[in-house]
């Protein structure tokens, strides 16, 4: 058994984990970062960002910068390593993802402190046919497009009218994929409630102000221009509004994904005002690829096995670890950062990681940690002010979390 001991183990090499590692290593702690993926950066390399002026930048460059900073500070990063257990002490058990890399991954890591920065996972869209080859979560499509430079398909629809769905539709088009439309999913197999077209319009309209990207704000503005209650609007909802060349259809929905060996078509139906499918309106569109978006859920399994209480805060993405303002948990030595704490935009995740790293360094008596702790607290508050939240009701979720932490 190959075991090693470190002062800080960071699980997850996304912006949060890299931020924690950089600060803690700069304070002289022995830091090991592990991640399942073959490359560090978390979900950043998948992303394209558009600033307020409409300029696009690639997340890849940011991921490289954060990785280089962590390594320059002295942190060790082991990719291709799955952390499958976390036991009091603290002891983490690891396994190599690729059997050929078995000798490169320690089986067991003893750590004085652990920062769990495992991120979030995409929720599936469980329509009939959702397991057919050719159905991809938005993140898989982005990885193909932006990391591998592979066109996911020739002709696609995007199912899921939210910021990520609208974003990935634009990404597909930039990658040369024909996108027939962005549509909501019909009420689902697992008891998903019908969402009335009026409610979808209201939800997308909020993007007009809060979206960080001009193209999403445009979507919000276009949709806001649809008079939701007016009878005339129903035709508009069905024909849709054009969003940078892609039809955004809010009065129709995908009821099923069709195919025998792979995706061949999607079935589309009109929605009634209450969001239910109008019988007899179904038609089929021929596509080879279906890209879905249904939001993100924090990835909290390791925190659960480590004994960190989970609390249900839907405004933050679902079950999140109970944690305080300095990213501490009620379990001594276990800290959290990034989307594992509740779905967070990457600049906030990075600031959270830096704060968690400073807290760990201070707890281990590093002389410069106090100063870093102060500036990291300020940077996180500033980051939250400057960054548009991914989830619309984030502020309410954070307030709820503060209450739960105070009452623990």
């Amino acid at each position, binding site marked *: 058994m190959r075991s090693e001991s470190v002062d800080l183990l960071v699980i997850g090499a996304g912006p949060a984990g890299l931020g924690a590692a950089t600060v803690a290593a700069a304070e002289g702690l022995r830091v090991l970062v592990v991640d*399942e*993926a*073959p490359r560090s950066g978390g*979900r950043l390399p998948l992303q*394209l960002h558009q600033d307020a002026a409409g300029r*696009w*930048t*690639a997340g*890849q460059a940011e991921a490289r910068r954060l990785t280089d900073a962590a390594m320059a500070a002295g942190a060790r990063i082991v990719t*291709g390593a799955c952390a499958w257990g976390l036991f009091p002490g603290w002891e983490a058990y690891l396994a190599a*993802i*690729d*059997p*050929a890399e078995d000798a490169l991954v320690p089986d067991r890591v003893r750590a004085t402190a652990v920062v769990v920065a495992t991120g979030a*996972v*995409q929720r*599936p869209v469980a329509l009939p046919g959702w*397991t*057919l*080859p*050719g*159905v*991809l*979560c938005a*993140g*898989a*499509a982005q*990885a*193909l*497009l*932006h*990391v*591998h*430079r*592979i*066109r*996911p398909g020739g002709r696609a629809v995007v199912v899921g009218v939210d910021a990520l769905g609208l974003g990935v539709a634009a990404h597909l088009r*930039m*990658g*040369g994929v024909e996108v027939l439309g962005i549509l909501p999913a019909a009420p689902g197999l697992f008891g998903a409630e019908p969402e009335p077209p009026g409610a979808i319009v209201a939800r997308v309209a909020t993007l007009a102000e809060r979206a960080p990207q001009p193209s999403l704000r445009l979507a919000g503005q276009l949709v806001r221009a649809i008079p939701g209650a007016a009878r005339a609007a129903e035709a508009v909802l069905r024909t849709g509004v054009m969003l940078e060349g892609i039809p955004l259809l809010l009065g129709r929905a995908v009821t099923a994904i069709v195919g*025998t*060996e*792979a995706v061949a078509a999607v079935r589309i139906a009109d929605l009634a005002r209450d969001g239910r499918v109008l019988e007899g309106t179904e038609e089929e569109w021929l596509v080879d690829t279906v890209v879905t978006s249904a939001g993100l859920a924090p*990835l909290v399994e390791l925190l659960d096995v480590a004994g960190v209480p989970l609390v249900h805060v839907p405004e933050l993405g679902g079950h999140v670890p109970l944690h305080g303002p300095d990213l501490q948990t009620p379990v001594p030595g276990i800290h959290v950062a990034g989307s594992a704490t509740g779905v967070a935009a990457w600049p906030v995740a990075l600031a959270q990681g830096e704060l968690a790293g400073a807290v760990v360094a201070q707890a281990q008596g590093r002389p410069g940690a106090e100063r870093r702790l102060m500036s990291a607290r300020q940077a996180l508050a500033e980051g939250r002010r400057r960054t548009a939240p991914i989830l619309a009701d984030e502020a309410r979720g954070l307030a709820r979390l503060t209450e739960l932490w105070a009452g623990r």
Partner: protein
Amino acid sequence: MDPTRIDEHPVLGPAAQRAVVTFTHAGREVTARDGDTVAAALWAAGLRAPCPGVAMLYCGIGHCFMCRLTVDGVRGVRACLVLVRPGLRTEPEPDPAG
């Protein structure tokens, strides 16, 4: 030129030149590019399913376990997390739905 590859991208610019890597899947030779994951390489090669009707790539980030393959004789390896290398041998799982 490979039509599934995005050689020029409006934001990312021209693709970096990457070496061609050859491996085998179910005994069939697959041509990939250095840096591809096995799942991405199979997708680009038109192999979207290890057997008909069962998706391989779904979440693409290691969570859904749909892309499990036998890699160099080891079962249950997530193909979206393993990079291609010359001579790699991958096989569909004996019971992909199980």
